[in-house]
C-alpha cells in the first residue's frame, strides 16, 4: 500500500518534469548561442497572425545577418505583467540588444530604463528616454489613409461607422483619430463609434447593434482586420451592401478582398518591423548610428493589388 501511494505521487511529479522537459526540448536551440551576438525580441503576444509576421521578419533578419534571435511573447496582448516578467527574464540572460513591442507603453518604462543594452521599440512607442529607436507604422497616417479610401468609395453625406480597438490601445486609437479626420474632411457623417476589443466576434455583435439603430450605414472603418471581418459577417447576414475597410493587412483580410467582400485594408508592414528591429539592433550592438524613428510604412490594399500582397504573405506565413 505504501509503495502504491509513493508510486502514484512520484508519477505525478515525474509527469510534471516530463512536461517541462518536453516543452523545453523543442526550443532549447533558440537559447543556444554562447559567444555569438544575440537579439532578444519580446512581442505583445505570439498568438495572432500579425505578430507571427513580425516574428517571421525578425527571424529572417537573424538568418540573413548571422545573429541569434530569440522571439517570445505572452499568451495574449492583455497579459501585461507576463510581458514585464519576460522582459526581465530575457535581460537576465544578457542579450546583445532587446527589441520590445509594449502591450501597455507606460508599464515597460521602469524595467527598460535600467537596461544596459540597446533597447528598440517596434509597433507601439513608449516614453523611454534611453530608447535607441522606434520602428513602426505611423498609426495616424494609417487611419487617415483608411478614411480616405473609404470616402473614395462613398458619396458626400453618406453615413459611416467606426469600430475602434481595445480600450486604451494607443495604436488603434491613433488610427481612429486619423480615419475620423479623413472622413470628416470628405464630408462623411459618422453615426457611430464603438470599441470591439480588436476581436472578430465582438465586432460582429457591435456591428449588429449599430445596424439595428442605423440600417442605412454605407461604410465602416475598422481599426484592425479581425474586427473588419467581424463587421463584414454582420453586414452580410443582413444582406446589406456596406463598404468595409480594415487595417493591418492580414492574410484573411487580403483573401477577403480578392473574394470581393472586404473593400480594402491599410496594410501595416509587421514583417518589416520585425526585420528592421533586428537589423537595427545589430547595428546598435556594433556601435553604428541608428535612426531614432523609422517608419515601416503603410500600403493601401484593394482588389487591384491584393493578389500580389497575398503571394507575399503566403511566403512568410510558413
Amino acid at each position: 500500500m505504501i509503495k502504491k501511494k509513493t508510486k502514484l505521487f512520484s508519477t505525478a511529479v515525474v509527469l510534471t518534469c516530463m512536461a517541462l522537459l518536453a516543452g523545453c526540448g523543442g526550443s532549447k536551440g533558440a537559447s543556444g548561442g554562447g559567444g555569438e551576438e544575440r537579439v532578444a525580441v519580446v512581442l505583445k503576444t505570439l498568438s495572432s497572425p500579425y505578430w507571427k509576421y513580425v516574428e517571421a521578419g525578425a527571424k529572417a533578419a537573424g538568418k540573413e545577418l548571422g545573429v541569434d534571435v530569440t522571439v517570445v511573447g505572452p499568451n495574449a496582448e492583455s497579459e501585461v505583467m507576463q510581458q514585464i516578467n519576460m522582459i526581465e527574464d530575457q535581460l537576465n540572460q544578457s542579450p546583445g540588444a532587446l527589441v520590445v513591442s509594449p502591450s501597455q507603453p507606460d508599464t515597460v518604462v521602469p524595467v527598460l530604463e535600467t537596461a544596459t543594452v540597446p533597447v528598440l521599440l517596434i509597433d507601439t512607442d513608449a516614453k523611454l528616454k534611453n530608447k535607441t529607436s522606434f520602428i513602426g507604422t505611423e498609426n495616424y497616417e494609417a487611419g487617415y489613409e483608411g478614411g480616405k479610401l473609404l470616402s473614395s468609395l462613398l458619396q458626400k453625406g453618406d453615413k459611416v461607422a467606426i469600430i475602434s480597438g481595445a480600450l486604451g490601445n494607443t495604436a488603434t486609437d491613433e488610427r481612429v483619430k486619423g480615419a475620423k479626420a479623413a472622413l470628416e474632411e470628405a464630408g462623411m457623417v459618422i453615426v457611430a463609434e464603438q470599441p470591439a476589443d480588436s476581436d472578430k466576434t465582438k465586432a460582429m455583435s457591435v456591428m449588429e447593434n449599430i445596424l439595428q439603430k442605423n440600417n442605412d450605414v454605407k461604410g465602416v472603418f475598422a481599426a484592425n482586420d479581425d474586427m473588419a471581418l467581424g463587421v463584414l459577417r454582420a453586414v452580410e447576414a443582413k444582406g446589406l451592401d456596406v463598404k468595409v475597410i480594415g487595417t493591418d493587412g492580414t492574410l484573411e483580410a487580403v483573401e477577403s478582398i480578392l473574394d470581393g467582400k472586404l473593400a480594402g485594408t491599410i496594410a501595416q508592414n509587421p514583417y518589416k518591423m520585425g526585420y528592421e528591429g533586428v537589423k537595427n539592433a545589430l547595428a546598435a550592438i556594433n556601435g553604428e548610428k541608428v535612426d531614432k524613428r523609422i517608419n515601416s510604412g503603410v500600403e493601401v490594399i484593394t482588389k487591384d493589388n491584393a493578389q500580389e500582397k497575398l503571394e507575399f504573405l503566403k511566403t512568410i506565413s510558413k
Partner: protein
Amino acid sequence: MSQVVVKTKNEVMNGTLKRVLSKFGPLIGLILLIMVLTVLSPKFLTVNNVMNIARQSSINALLAIGMLLPILTAGIDLSVGSLLALSIMMMGIVTVNMGMSPFLGILVCLAVGAGFGWLNGILLTKLRLPHPFISTLGTMNIARGIALIVTGAAPIAGFPYAIQFLGREFVGPIPVSFLLVIVVYVIFHIFLTRTQTGRYIYAIGGNPEAARLSGINVDRVLIIVYTISGLMAGLAGLVMVGRVNSAFPLAGLSYELDAIAAVIIGGASFMGGVGTVWGTLIGALIIAVLRNGLNLLNVPADFQMTVIGTVIIAAVFVDVLRQRKSKKA
C-alpha cells in the same frame, strides 16, 4: 497474533507517510522543480534571477493569501483581479489626476479593495446569494466595468515615489515587495492559528452547520473573510503600480486563476477546512518558479499554461489520494 502486529505496523507507516506528504508535499515539489530547472538552465540559480523570482511572485503571493481565506471556508473570490484594477485606477485618479497626497492615494487603494470585498461578504450573507462563486462573479464584472469607465479606459502613469516604494525598492539585493509578502504571511499565520476568528474560519470550512450550531456568527466571519480578500487585492495592486509605474483598467485580468492555483497547489482543499499559510506561499513560489524557469528556457507562453494546468491537476490528485487514504483508515 502476528497478523495483528503486521497490520499495526502498516497503519503507523501509512500515517507517517500521509502526514509527511500532506505537510511537505508542496515543498518537496518545489525543491524537485528547482533542482530540475537548475540542471536545465545555467542562469536559473543566480542571485539576480532568484531575486527576480521573488519580485515576480509578490503580486500573486499577496492575492493568494487573500484567496486562502475564502477557500478555507469552502468559498471562492473570483473578483480579486478586477478589484486590483479598480483599486489602482482610483488611486491613480486621486493621486495623479487630482494631485492629492500619495498617502491618501494608498489609503484609497486599500479602501476600495476592502470596500468591495466587504460588498462581496454582504452579497453572500445578507442577500443570501447561493454561493460566493455567484456573488464574486458579479462584483468581478462590476468592478472591471467601473475601472474601465472612470478614465474612459485610459491608463494613468507617473505615480509619486511614495506609492512606488513597495513595488520597486530593494533592501540590498532583496526586493521590498518580497519582504512585504513575508511580513503579510506571518501576520496571516498568526491570525489563522492564534486568533478566535482564524479558528472559526477553519471550523466553518470543515462543517458550516456544526459551526453555526455551536454559536459561531458565520455571517460576521464570512464578511471579514471577503473584506480581507479584497484588501489583499488592493495591496497587490499597490505593488504592481510600484513595479510598472502605471495603472491601467485591464490590470489583473484573470489573476484570480493564478491565485486559486497557488492556494490549491499549496495543499488547500476546495471543500474547505484544510490549508495553511505556508502551503500557499509554496504554491505561489511554485508558479513563479515554473514561469520564470520556462521563460529562461524560452518555452512558448502557451505551453507554460499547459504546464501550470498539469501541476494543478497533479497537486489536487495528491490531495485526493490523501483524502481517500484517510477515509480508508
